[in-house]
Each structure stands twice: as structure tokens, then as C-alpha cells.
């Protein structure tokens, strides 16, 4: 089954994305969001723009913070049990159980607020990833 993504040309260089629905079990919160397909990221992570958009109160997440490093610097994020859903072009639903991370410190720079949430290897490794930027195609396959 193929889940089609898209390439966002608002990024330099253009970046592969996929639309997903997430359900944060601890908060009983459901939302849709575009996720950057990031094979360099160990974990699926919700960054500031979505934390702000969804008004997530990270103090309600019970598990302890974990530290993460990136080109944006050091940050802290809390793990939380999450269901991530994708839909195929033929209308089938695929659901993955994951422990997604939610950034739990204030955004250190306005520039970082623009960054999208990330689909990391914890989920991507369950799929084949097909990324052909020259033909404008991206999809994950199971």
C-alpha cells in the first residue's frame, strides 16, 4: 500500500512531506499536520509551530524530558504515546503506534518557530521510502 507525500518547495533545499493525523493519547487530542520526512531524525517530534497551533500543554505529559540536538541547538522534548494515521490514495487507513516527542521548552528563536514537525526513523523504518525529487514524487510503502 502506498501513502503519497509531496515536496514542499518553500524549503531550501525542497523537502519531502507527508500529511498525517495524530492522536496524543495522554491529552486525548487529535490533529492533522504535515510531517517532514526526516531519515536523519531518530524520533518523530512535534515542534513549536504545532505545539502552538494545537495549544499543547506539555506540563500534562507525564514522562520526563529527553534532550535532543540539532542544527537549531539543544532542546528538550517529552515522549508521549501517539497514534499516527496516514491515508492511501485508494482510501485505506494505516495506523502506527509510536512514542512521539513534543518539545517542552519555549522556542529559543523565532526562526525555529517556522520549522515543521518531523516524521522520524521510529516510524519510517516500518516502511519503504521512495523519494524522487527529480520527478517530484515521494511516497512511503508498506
Amino acid at each position: 500500500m502506498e501513502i503519497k507525500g509531496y515536496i514542499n518547495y518553500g524549503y531550501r533545499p525542497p523537502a519531502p512531506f507527508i500529511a498525517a493525523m495524530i492522536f496524543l493519547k495522554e491529552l486525548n487530542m487529535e490533529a492533522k499536520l504535515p510531517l517532514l520526512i526526516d531519515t536523519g531524525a531518530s524520533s518523530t517530534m512535534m515542534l513549536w509551530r504545532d505545539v502552538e497551533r494545537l495549544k499543547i500543554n506539555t506540563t500534562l505529559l507525564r514522562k520526563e524530558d529527553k534532550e535532543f540536538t540539532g542544527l537549531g541547538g539543544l532542546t528538550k522534548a517529552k515522549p508521549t504515546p501517539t497514534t499516527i494515521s496516514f491515508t492511501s490514495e485508494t482510501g485505506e487507513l494505516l495506523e502506527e503506534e509510536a512514542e512521539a516527542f513534543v518539545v517542552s521548552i519555549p522556542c529559543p528563536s523565532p526562526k525555529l518557530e517556522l520549522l515543521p514537525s518531523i516524521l522520524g526513523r521510529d516510524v519510517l523504518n516500518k516502511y519503504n521510502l521512495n523519494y524522487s525529487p527529480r520527478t517530484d514524487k515521494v511516497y512511503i510503502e508498506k
Partner: protein
Amino acid sequence: MSKTSSLQEFTDDIVWLMKSRDELIEKYEDEWVAVWKTTIIDHDENLDILIERLRVKGYKPQHMVIEFLSKKPIEAILWKSKAT
């Protein structure tokens, strides 16, 4: 609406935004835009203000495409857990 069709609508809005991006940037440069059923329904330079206004209008921002439009490309980053 089923989860599948709801997610498909969200995807359609994203695809529409990507296709219309160049045209929309001329009108909404350096602003956050909210898309619903392939239409820009609101926009603002401030994400918080936009979200609050959408809520007041009765929309559900958690189920909408909300993107920042800028002529300057965004540079993405990598995240790695310190423990791995």
C-alpha cells in the same frame, strides 16, 4: 466524516496550497495563512493571533492547514536524541 476522508481533505488543501504557492506569496508574503476547502479563509503575521481568531470564528485550527508563506526558503534541520 470518516478519518480517511477527513485526512484526504487535509491533504487536498496542502496540495492546493503547494500548487498555488507562488501566486499566494504575492498576496500574503511573510504571513501565516489558514486553508479550508482549498480557500484561504484568514491570514496574519502572528500565528497566535490567527489561531485565536479562527477559534472565535468557529473553525478548528487543529484540523486545518496553516502555513507560513515567504519568498525566503525555510532551512530544515536534523534532530537526534542525545542517547542514540
